[in-house]
């Protein structure tokens, strides 16, 4: 990228933060399968910059957060459940590492997405008012990527808080 085009890119990125479309993350389905277990089904779309970053060896760190809200007032989230996705070029496989579980390798991206969209059931305390959220941990991206990830829409891998039924 030339110096001039870089300037144009900066201006466009500052002026049109929502124009570029890349990855997306949203909760497709959420249900309690037991008193303290919630099964979540995600819709993961890894396109654009996040997909390129993954292909180029950048680890995408994700976290599943849980919090309890009462009448609009929400407590601090419980400790998060961490997972990360990375690519191993020698094996030509995607690796999905879930907290406290061995890494799972996927030779094909659809398989990876399928695994990401169907994470293991999550422990959520019984009772109403619980919310879940899955998001990219920007702070754990490589430093040069953090600023674009904060400012650019295509890096907005965040489901937002979703109420647990």
């Amino acid at each position, binding site marked *: 990228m030339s110096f001039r085009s870089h300037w144009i890119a900066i201006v466009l990125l500052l002026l049109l933060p929502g124009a570029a479309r890349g990855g997306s993350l949203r909760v497709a389905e959420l249900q309690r399968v037991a008193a303290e277990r919630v099964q979540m089904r995600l819709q993961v779309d890894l396109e654009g910059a996040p997909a390129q970053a993954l292909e*180029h060896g950048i680890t995408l760190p994700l976290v599943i957060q849980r919090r309890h809200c009462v009448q609009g007032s929400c407590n601090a989230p419980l400790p998060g459940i961490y997972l990360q996705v990375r690519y191993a070029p020698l094996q030509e496989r995607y690796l999905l590492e879930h907290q406290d579980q061995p890494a799972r390798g996927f030779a094909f991206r659809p398989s990876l997405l399928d695994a990401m969209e169907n994470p293991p059931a999550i422990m959520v305390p019984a009772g109403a008012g619980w919310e879940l959220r899955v998001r990219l941990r920007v702070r754990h991206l490589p430093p040069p990527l953090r*600023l674009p990830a904060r400012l650019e829409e295509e890096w907005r891998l965040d489901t937002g808080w979703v109420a647990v039924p």
Partner: protein
Amino acid sequence: MASGYRLGCGAVSSAPLIRRIWQLLPWLAAAWLGTLALLLDGSGTAFAPSIDPAAPSIMVSAGIALAILVFASTARVLQLRAAARRREAGARLSWRLIRHMLWVALPPLLLLYIASMKFVHSSIEGWFQPDVAEALDNALQVAQRAVQLDQGNQRRALEPWIARLDLDQRAEVAAVLDQAIDELNALELTVFGSDRRIIASASADPRYLLPLYPELPPNGFVGADGITLLESPAGGQVSLLIVPLTAQRDPAILQARFPFDTRMGQLTRRLEAQTLAYTRLSFLRNALRYTLSAVLSFVLLVSALGTLFLAFALARRLSSPIRDLAEATEAIAEGDLAVRLPEDGDDELSALARSFNRMTARLASADTRVRSTQDALESERAFLATVIERISAGVITFDHDLHLLVCNSAAQDLLEVDLSAVIGLSTGQLISALPTLSPLCEAIEAGYSSAALEWRQEVALGESRRLLLRATRLPEEAGLVAVFEDQSEANRQQRESAWGEVARRLAHEIKNPLTPIQLAAERIRHRYLSRLGPDDGQVLDRATTTIVAQVDALKSMVNAFSEYARAPRLSPQQQALAPIVLEVVELYRGEQQRMTIEVALPPQLPPLRVDSGRLRQMLHNLLKNASEAAGDSDLQVQIDADVISEGSRAFVELRVADNGPGIAESVRERLFEPYVTSKAKGSGLGLAIVKRIVEEHGGQIRAENGADGGAVFRLRLPL
């Protein structure tokens, strides 16, 4: 000192605390932004302590600080422009200094920014060599090829065993797998059916005791050669082979895992890590450029704003002494000589401030002396004016061209003209404007034209008034002072004095023998009337009766003289005039049916300090005088009063007007002297006593004929 323009103080004309915060906040914001500009690092490779620009707290705080700085700078710029337009002291100089400082500071800053951007971009590009990327890619492919060769060998080794498999004989399949795993030194051999269920499995590694169905392509197609993968579980790398069992009746697959060569595994892992690191770095260069450009732009913005802010501070510091000097000069021009400038420092501006303060101190001292002299002169002038105003003689002054400068009230009274309207006129102009003053003006002109320093002259104003003029030439040809007195009044006073002496002697010499004469006449009458015959007795009776009556008449006359001559013994009290007047008038209403008295005294008439008894006598004499002058004619008397001011003096003027014959011209000038009367009846002392009573109260009396006839007496009693 006028409130001048203040850089950085703002127009927030509110509480001091808010003003302090408003002053301090931009500096805190600038300090924080400066710290960020020094410590921000977006590369993640800094060795020094650094701040992540993407941290939300940093982004928010930097945004707030930037907003504060932009707002403060804009406010200061607008404030300064407005002050410059209002031409406030120091504003234009500050504006010029700021512009110059920005002209000096901003171009190098921009140059440095552009150079830094180019340097960053070229440096980042320089990190990446296409040859290195290609070499690493080739190395990775070599490693992959080595893995494939190894897996190819393993695939070929499996062939004989695959040929021995017959899925219809499942017990044998397990035996074949158990045998093969030992022979092939495999970690796991598992046969899955088309339903993904395990048909048979053999494992030499506990991790694979419960084998999972392998991951296949999304379409489930394995291909004739199968799939080879390299896994990296804990404890070393593992080759995974998925081989289709095409010779079987039902499609099935064989999953085989072989340990990968340890040394080969280490090398390929290291190679993969290095390739990955390079690939990652290559991918991150755009993001790195983006982040570094943003950081550099941020630093440029902070530097520009900081430069602007420092320019304001520096301009304030430089222009402050000059602004103070301008304001102080303006204050001095407006008369404030107490203004002083701060003398801090030892530079030229401080020396200027010291010189200015010395000059101002001397000016203040001189001004104080001048003011003191002026005050003294003013005090003396006021004292002199008061003295001149209070003296009974008329005083007028002329300048060297004989223009009228000053006159007192007595002069106006004596000359019976309003001199305040002709102040500034020359004697010639005075003669034209007031012809009655021509004898006086001519006498003054004649005396001034002579060489005499002082002269006195008697001047006749009309037929009956004579003034005694005394004039003195002022030093240095500054003009003259003329003092004059009414010579007629002086003569009248002499006559009054003589009459007073006569009255005292009459009272003393005549009053005493009158009683013995009266007693003697009554005794003669009493003793001899009865002894004489009728004719003689009648003569005696008539004679003694005449003697007694004449003695009574003499007594009345002597008493009147005594009253006229007696020394004043007033008992004045502050009291209203109306009750006294009404009390006297009431007496006349009862007795004199032919006399009609109308009283019209205003209710707001202020009280007077008078002797009520003497005032009653004065009114009684005036009414009696009017009654005697009217004779048997019907008499109408009108009494009214008003407040009159003359210069600094105020009077109550009581007017007593009648419709009688008026004042004869022959007695007009000497009306208030004893025994001057035109009436057939009366002692001739009534009006003289009235005048004396008025003068005892410090007042004045004037008599004149009314416009419709009759006499009008105007009595002025001081307030």
